[in-house]
């Protein structure tokens, strides 16, 4: 820090010691940060820290939390609904992540080419992302209608036995994944496109002079150059998949049975339908831990790369 450099001298020309300048800068700096920071502390930082305490307490709708030690955790391990929610979250992520990544990457490559209509296409692909969950879920629910929905009428042309989608325990999750992919693909497409556009065109030109075709260029130039972006997108996508909540809440409400119940929705259910805030926090903490693992992997990867 160059606090004592003449550049940061006091404006009025009076000589200030380094200490005084540091003090003045601290006051000014904190002053600028304060309006946001105060809100941030109360609404985000404190809740995050308090979570660790509440997760080990019993806290119903009224009264204060009572410390129960590891009781909640013992309950967690025996809780079948929790296990179902955990498995569903993982299943959702395992299918949703590669699907979204593959489509988003393909779209980004298309948009980075010289095809016509691509700016129109970029706009269109982004529409679902700015659409509200409630409206989107309602439209898709109607499209997925087992008897007279558009999708099953279309599938009925090929098969006599189209899936019952949201009414069936096997097909509800695929339906949710389709909608989630439809909604998010445009967002990740933009991130990947930003990455693609940092690749110098000279690389492609040089390689095409050397006789490399598009397919080879894709694997030998695009993918290696995109590794940092791809990794970042993967992390964002993974955390985004783990924390999915409003889509399943509106589309299926976790049903049928627990077929589409995910972790975040189980948190919501335990807290607001059973007023069991202590145990809900315990479930929250596992969601927290899940996301932290992904973030730590990201840190580890970035550090390793910098070495």
């Amino acid at each position: 820090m160059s606090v004592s450099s003449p550049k940061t001298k006091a404006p009025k020309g009076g000589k200030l010691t380094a200490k005084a300048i540091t003090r003045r800068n601290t006051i000014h700096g904190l002053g600028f940060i304060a309006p946001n920071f105060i809100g941030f502390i109360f609404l985000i930082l404190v809740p995050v820290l308090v979570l660790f305490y509440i997760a080990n307490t019993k806290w119903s709708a009224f009264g204060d939390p009572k410390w129960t030690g590891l009781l909640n955790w013992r309950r967690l391990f025996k809780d079948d609904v929790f296990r179902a929610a955990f498995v569903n979250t993982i299943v959702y992520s395992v299918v949703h992540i590669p699907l979204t990544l593959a489509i988003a990457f393909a779209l980004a490559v298309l948009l980075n080419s010289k095809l016509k209509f691509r700016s129109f296409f970029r706009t269109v692909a982004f529409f679902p992302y700015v659409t509200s969950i409630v409206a989107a879920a309602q439209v898709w629910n109607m499209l997925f209608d087992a008897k007279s929905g558009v999708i099953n009428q279309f599938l009925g042309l090929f098969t006599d036995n189209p899936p019952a989608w949201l009414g069936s325990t096997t097909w509800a999750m695929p339906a949710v994944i389709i909608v989630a992919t439809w909604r998010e693909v445009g967002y990740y497409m933009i991130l990947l496109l930003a990455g693609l556009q940092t690749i110098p065109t000279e690389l492609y030109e040089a390689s095409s002079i050397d006789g490399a075709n598009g397919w080879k260029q894709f694997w030998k130039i695009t993918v290696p150059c995109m590794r940092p972006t791809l990794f970042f997108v993967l992390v964002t996508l993974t955390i985004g998949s783990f924390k999915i909540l409003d889509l399943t809440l509106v589309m299926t409400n976790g049903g049928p049975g627990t077929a589409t119940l995910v972790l975040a929705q189980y948190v919501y259910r335990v807290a607001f339908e059973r007023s069991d805030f202590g145990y809900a926090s315990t479930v929250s903490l596992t969601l927290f831990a899940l996301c932290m693992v992904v973030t730590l992997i990201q840190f580890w990867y970035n550090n390793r790369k910098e070495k």
Partner: protein
Amino acid sequence: MTAATVDFTALAGKGANPANRPSTSDIPWNKQKTSPLKIVGTVIGYLGMLCLTIFMVLPFVWMFLAAVKPNNEVFMVPFKWLPSVWHWENYINIWTDSNMLTWLGNTVFFAFCVTFLQVFTGSFAAYGFSKIKFPGRNVLFLIYIATMAVPWQAYMIPQYKILSSIHLTDTRWSIILLQAFGAFGVFMMKQFYDTIPEELSEAARLDGLSEWGIYRRIVLPLSGPSIAALGIITFTNTWNDYMGPLMYLRSPSLQTIQLGLKTFISQNSANYAMVMTGSVMSVLPILIVFLIGQKQFVEGIATSGMKG
């Protein structure tokens, strides 16, 4: 946070100016014969684009058409795209059949308040983090960044308990406070302020401008595009937020469009056309906002790589 550092001018350049950069192959005498493989590739490209456009757009088309269909045609077998009678009056009836005006009014109010607070406090704090050097600055910023990785879903319960302990649930304040102080805004604005050369603020400091003056007269006027980006992203997020209002708002007079629409859907589940009309009403304003501010929106996302 690798992509966060992606230079968005690349995207802006391409996005804003679709004219292709001249490359060596564009010069006539350099032109190679187009190989059949390339033609196949182009065809596949267009086909892929067409298929995905259909996948993206059809639900919207269906929604807009269903909104003006007679109710019994929404789920007709075999289904028809176009209504036999166009019921445009659905768009008039929705105002009397539901509390649409209240919902829209509340949502617009929340969206403006949150956007204003987020942009104002966010750019303020970003200036502190980016342009003023003081001990502890990096630690504070690290705390911001660290909490960005924590999903809201994980701390929504303690947050709810804190806000309800000071009796803010079911008030307008709950939604405003909930959305306005995200680390996202600070992070995004700091990304931008870091690109403003240090010399500019240093020179102003030498000329005797106060920190507030530098922020007000130099940094703020330069940050129009990024403020627009943050503003439009925050506006959209607040407009589309469903979980916040669902958890905090009970009184019908405070309901937002998302919450109101959900209530409307459950009360009129058989009135398909009307439900779709309501859905269109909830989507259309934000689609228009998006179309107007598309450039800023997309650039903002590409720069920060994160949403709220």
